[in-house]
């Protein structure tokens, strides 16, 4: 399976703290996307990083990509209770750019 693995599987923090979650994959990619899923809902796109980019920011989100280690990280700064959700990375492989391959997800709980 080409499915990515995310680490940790679950993360609990207090409001105001930073949350970091990691995604590892197995083969070369074209780009990597991060999505958020609130409980019982569909996924919502957060950010995309291309294979030739190393870091990208969007508001309180910071994504890094290390293609040599085949890994990416998502940092959420100054977490809020509303950030409580599951976060998934999704990779696009050069051999088929029509498909996203989703990771197993990190469940983030932010306590007020």
């Amino acid at each position: 399976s080409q499915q990515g693995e995310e680490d940790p599987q679950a993360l609990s923090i207090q409001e105001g703290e930073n949350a970091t979650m990691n995604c590892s994959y197995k083969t070369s990619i074209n780009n990597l996307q991060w999505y958020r899923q609130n409980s019982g809902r569909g996924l919502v796109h957060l950010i995309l990083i291309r294979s030739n980019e190393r870091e990208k920011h969007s508001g309180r989100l910071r994504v890094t990509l290390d293609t040599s280690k085949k890994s990416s990280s998502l940092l959420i700064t100054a977490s809020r209770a509303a950030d409580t959700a599951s976060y998934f990375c999704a990779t696009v492989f050069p051999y088929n750019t029509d498909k996203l391959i989703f990771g197993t997800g990190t469940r983030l709980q932010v306590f007020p």
Partner: protein
Amino acid sequence: NAGVTQTPKFRVLKTGQSMTLLCAQDMNHEYMYWYRQDPGMGLRLIHYSVGEGTTAKGEVPDGYNVSRLKKQNFLLGLESAAPSQTSVYFCASSYSSGGGRETQYFGPGTRLLVL
């Protein structure tokens, strides 16, 4: 603008029964996808379509069929449901694949329980 909608929201089936899940999008997207989500497994792609009249297999296509007769609709069929198909099913669409740079927009999901 409703985005991506899915029908039904929840369904209980007995083993061997058949059903069709409907996905509709009003964003004029070319690409549509069906995923299933199981605990601890993330999302796995069942089938997808790159345009009206086309379909292709994803990672876990066995036991499912799809049709894309109209651009805005993507149907997922279970001919003979099995308990292993108990899952939450998500539909998604995107304008194109754009080399994988396009955002996918997701529906709210359909919870299916097969007894």
